[in-house]
């Protein structure tokens, strides 16, 4: 119950902010942070619950963005349709990648996901219709009547996606599916012998996770009014999506959210005040520090301090 009140409050807050007179830059940056909430949450469904490390966030994200571009260019599809189609395309990509490599040990899956980024990147670079390597310029349609600017509308859209992603992740986590995924992470053989269809479950997680990443990428072309392969298939998305749950804590849906908000905000501040390179360095260093020193992330630290009780679910 508490959770659903939180959900309603978050959506209301996002909409309220967007309709109020807050500084435009807030939405510009907030959009990026929320986008990372979706990516981190999506990553955690497979990586955190089932223990399969996905390095390919950038591929799923990029394919989502390009699906949106194609639909927009071809038939002028509305944003909602773009997002749905992007989720389907990236979900399908997740299913395919999973089918090919989820039978193998985790490391092979991880390497394969890096491969998917480069293959998709190369394919898009060689596809003239979407602008090839130079990218494609897009003209934003007018924002919906209630909103002052398109960025504000996208901010609310991304907030809704983030909330939806968290709801999906939380449902998976507390249901039998999540218990099966955790069983896989703890011991795949024992899980299989306890009747858990491990391959099917992993494929499911990989598909859902990919679909969410795709959905997160779909509004990107509209956000930037422009899209090019180098920045949309950037490996930085992959590290961030992996670092955020690791920093927040992978065992609880709240972990990726905390990680994304913390790291995402720091990134925004560092990018503006110092430079983009330092920003990536911060992510890398924090990732290594947390992985080594605080394996259960911020949530684990909080739990140790007894701030958070086990009943928080």
């Amino acid at each position, binding site marked *: 119950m508490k959770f659903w009140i939180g959900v309603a409050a978050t959506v209301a807050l996002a909409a309220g902010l967007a309709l109020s007179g807050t500084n435009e830059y807030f939405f510009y940056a907030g959009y990026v942070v929320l986008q990372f909430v979706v990516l981190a949450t999506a990553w955690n469904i497979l990586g955190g619950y089932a223990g399969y490390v996905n390095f390919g966030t950038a591929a799923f994200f990029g394919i989502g963005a390009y699906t949106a571009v194609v639909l927009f260019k071809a038939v002028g599809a509305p944003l909602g349709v773009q997002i749905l189609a992007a989720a389907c395309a990236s979900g399908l990509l997740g299913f395919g990648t999973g089918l090919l490599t989820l039978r193998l040990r985790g490391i092979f899956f991880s390497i394969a996901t890096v491969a998917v980024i480069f293959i998709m990147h190369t394919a898009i670079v060689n596809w003239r219709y979407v602008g090839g390597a130079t990218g494609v310029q897009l003209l934003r349609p007018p924002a919906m009547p209630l909103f002052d600017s398109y960025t504000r509308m996208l901010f609310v859209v991304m907030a809704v996606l983030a909330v939806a992603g968290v709801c999906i992740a939380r449902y998976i986590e507390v249901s039998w599916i999540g218990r099966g995924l955790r069983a896989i992470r703890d011991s795949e053989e024992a899980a299989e012998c306890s009747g858990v269809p491990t391959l099917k479950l992993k494929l499911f997680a990989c598909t859902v996770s990919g679909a969410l990443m795709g959905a997160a990428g779909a509004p990107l072309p509209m956000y930037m009014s422009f899209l090019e392969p180098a920045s949309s298939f950037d490996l930085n998305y992959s*590290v961030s999506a992996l670092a955020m749950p690791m920093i927040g804590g992978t065992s609880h849906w709240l972990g990726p959210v905390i990680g994304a908000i913390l790291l995402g905000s720091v990134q925004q501040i560092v990018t503006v005040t110092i430079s983009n390179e330092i920003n990536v360095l911060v992510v890398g260093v924090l*990732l290594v520090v947390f*992985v080594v020193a605080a394996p259960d992330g911020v949530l684990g630290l909080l739990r140790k301090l007894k701030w958070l009780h086990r009943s928080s679910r």
Partner: protein
Amino acid sequence: MLFGILVGCFYAAVSVGLSVAFGLLDVPHVAHPALMVLGSYCTYLLGRYGWDPIVAGIALTPLFFLLGVAIYRFYYETFEKRGSDAGVRGLAFFFGLAFIIEVGLILVFGVDQRMVEADYIGKSLSLGGYRIPWRLLVAFGVALLLTAALTLYLSRTFTGRAIKAVAQDEPALRLMGANPVRIKQWAFGIATAVTALAGAMLIVVGPVEPSLDRVYIGRTFCVVVLAGLGSMTGTLLAGLILGVSESIVLTLFGASWAPAVAFGLLLVVLGIRPQGLFGR
């Protein structure tokens, strides 16, 4: 075609280190290519003081050996020993490490391409109508020597055989009174030392930029997986296969498709024959 063979040998040489670290020691070393690029930049630095890249590469090996020992020691203490979730967190650790190295290089050297100077760079050997750049030949020669030396080392010396044994049966080795951790540490050191030399060749073959490690994640893992984990002769052959396929794609479809070759080949191998061509 000939070009493919030369480059293929080079690919094999840049992958042997990973073949030891990942294939034999089972360490998910995704930072291997980043270390290699680091080696290239160290070579570049020494090159500014007039060092020949190959000499610089060799001079760097002891340093990289120590670096490798340190990395393994750290990895062992924090992940392997505790055993909990080593897979996920170990991978994240190396991925993070790769990024730190890459960004560190960007901060120090900038994103521009760097190259070295030596007598054999820029000149070509004419051979029956073909022009073969000397730099490729040099890299080819060093690559062959390096792979051969490592193969001999692993099969002929006591430590070499111990490294192979540790991959197959750790408890047995412990019973024989050898310390598996020290052997692994040593092996990882060697793998990293070899990487320094590979990095030196990388900058001989062509200009280097900090983000070059990303493409080489695909090339090195492709070679190691295709070879069958830990097989040295397999590594050489797999490198050749990759080099030749890349040059074929390059001539048929153009340069813009080339980066995908290694990754595509890798996916195909994983999907069809994950134990590799020469796997157990």
